[in-house]
């Protein structure tokens, strides 16, 4: 994480954060200030020399870079880097494995009517893995221009056109980057993390697995921009566009001050077995009250419920017929 040490000024036009290697702002396209170059005093015909052997270097199409024909060494050219980056900060596990196991038992015991009766006793815990899953977290200000049709102000047609411009501020919006967890699971887990607790080091149970970010920097930016558009659209529907029903919603966003962090978020992934069938359950790493997962359903109990409903219905029909 040495790149973090180098502080880069944000984009002058849109105030979005830039990375060291960025040649242009990824949001608005403004050129990042170039490193100072020595002014040329007198005209000269400069022969570009190879750093290793001193021969003249020419740009080579095959190498897609300047290459020395004599020693074959390739000169590095500054382009926009697109690395796969790893987490900048880790949120600590505040739920220990024992508590997570307890949370699972509570989840199985809570069950509800359709759960098999002996579930909590018969289920056997197969594995309990503490995992840090990757997510991007962003803050951004968005200037949203929109148009839409809605029922408000409609005359002869059911629809009337509307347009507007508004500003949204998004804070601490997480965009899951995990491949191991489903999007739904990520969305259910994300709101329950304590944002302020991010650390530079991993604090958690021994042997916790860190799921790596898989997409590159440009891929990450695309995911974040997609999320901004999606969220803007949702917020527009909640009271900004007049009316109750909408269609043809068009959104154009101009982002400013986009800040993205790469976080590792703690979760327990558990597997238990009940009557030879495996089930997967997630327990939140910072809030044992959040448990997601599947549990078996008792076929007998479902059948009994259906039967009971049928009996009641039949009874009602019979009573109606007697009348």
């Amino acid at each position, binding site marked *: 994480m040495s790149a973090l040490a180098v502080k880069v000024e944000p984009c002058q*036009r*849109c105030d979005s954060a830039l990375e060291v290697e960025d*040649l*242009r702002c990824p*949001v*608005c*396209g*403004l*050129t990042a200030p*170039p490193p100072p*170059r020595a*002014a*040329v*005093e*007198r*005209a*000269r*015909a*400069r*022969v*570009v020399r190879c750093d290793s052997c001193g021969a*003249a*270097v*020419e*740009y080579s*199409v*095959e190498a*897609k*870079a*300047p290459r020395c024909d004599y020693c074959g060494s390739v*000169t590095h*050219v*500054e*382009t*926009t880097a*697109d690395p796969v980056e790893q987490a900048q900060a880790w949120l600590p596990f505040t739920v220990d494995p024992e508590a997570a196991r307890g949370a699972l038992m509570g989840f199985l015991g809570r069950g509800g009517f359709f759960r098999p009766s002996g579930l909590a006793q018969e289920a056997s815990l197969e594995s309990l893995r503490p995992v840090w899953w990757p997510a991007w977290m962003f803050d951004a200000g968005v*200037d949203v*221009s929109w*148009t839409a*049709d809605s029922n408000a102000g*409609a*005359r*002869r*047609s*059911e*629809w*009337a*056109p*509307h*347009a*507007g*411009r508004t500003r949204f501020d998004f804070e601490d919006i997480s965009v899951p980057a995990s491949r191991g967890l489903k999007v739904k699971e990520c969305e259910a887990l994300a709101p329950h993390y304590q944002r302020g607790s991010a650390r530079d080091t991993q604090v958690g149970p021994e042997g916790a697995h860190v799921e790596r970010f898989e997409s590159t920097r*440009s891929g990450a930016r695309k995911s974040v921009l997609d999320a901004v558009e999606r969220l803007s659209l949702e917020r527009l529907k909640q009271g900004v566009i007049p009316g109750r029903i909408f*269609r*043809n*919603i*068009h959104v*154009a*966003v*101009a982002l400013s001050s986009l800040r993205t962090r790469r976080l590792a978020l703690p979760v327990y992934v558990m597997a238990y077995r009940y009557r030879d069938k495996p089930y997967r359950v997630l327990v939140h790493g910072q809030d044992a009250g959040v448990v997601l997962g599947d549990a078996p359903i008792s076929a007998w109990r479902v059948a009994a419920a259906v039967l009971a409903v049928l009996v009641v219905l039949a009874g009602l029909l019979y009573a109606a017929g007697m009348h």
Partner: protein
Amino acid sequence: MAEPTQTREPPSSLAEPLLHLGCQSCGARLMLEPALRTTRCPYCAAPAVVERPPVPGVPEPVFALGFALTHTTAKAHVARWLRTRSRFTRSGIRSASPGEVKGVYVPAYLYSVLAQARYRASIGENYQETETYTTTENGKTVTRTRTVTRTEWRPLEGELSGYVADVLVTASKGLENAELEALEPFDLRALARYTPALISGWMAEEPSLTLEECRALARREAVDRVGVKLTRFMPGDSYRELQHQARLEWEALDVCLLPVWVLAVKYAEDAPPLRVLVNGQTGAVHGKAPISPWKVLAAVVFVLALLAVGWLLTSGGGR
């Protein structure tokens, strides 16, 4: 008018004199055209990149896109392009073989801006209506109903704000903006920060259009793009009378060197060679193959003759 780098006036008429510089490799005198950024020593073949003191109004390149297409691939692209021209092009073009291919770094401006547009349009919202009409059925007049779709026009005014990035306009007199547009798109993800090593050994031009001309071109293109965006932005089932005015803020303009393969195709002794351009990154080919008026005339006459014969035959058969 053959090639972009050779359309210049003789050096004597240019304001700037030829530069005389020493070759850093063998010490020979190099004569340099002011419009070029690179040269090669005629004695020792050492490639050199010219560095000049800054000239007001002529910015230094900030970016360059390296060539990704080799000499032979570029030639093959042109050969295929020539073969697939229309039958009406002048004779010799479809069978011509591409001549010498030259790789040139053409200067262009990369422009980006924050555009705030105000627009006004008439939005059409459709609705269905049942109308009654009378018609004649089996000799009797009957009244029927039918559903018709009508459009209600509603005025709409609004604003659209957004960044317009990645606008490229030519900065070279040798390459017209329309030609550049025909070669676009370039993949700007491969953009590299300009360094002399990137153009060493290749021909590179200095910007020859003034900054003001290029900025005007870029502004026009940005406003056009906002217009295109607006056509997709309109709600309703249809729209008409869409007008917009864009206010451009926060302009940024940087010189970017673009890779272009240029070649002249000699297809006839008496005609000037045909200029063909190839995008040095994607291989897109652009050129204006001249149409032969004789071939078009011959085709028209042939079709007319065919029609006449057909008419004669049918009227002859009818007699």
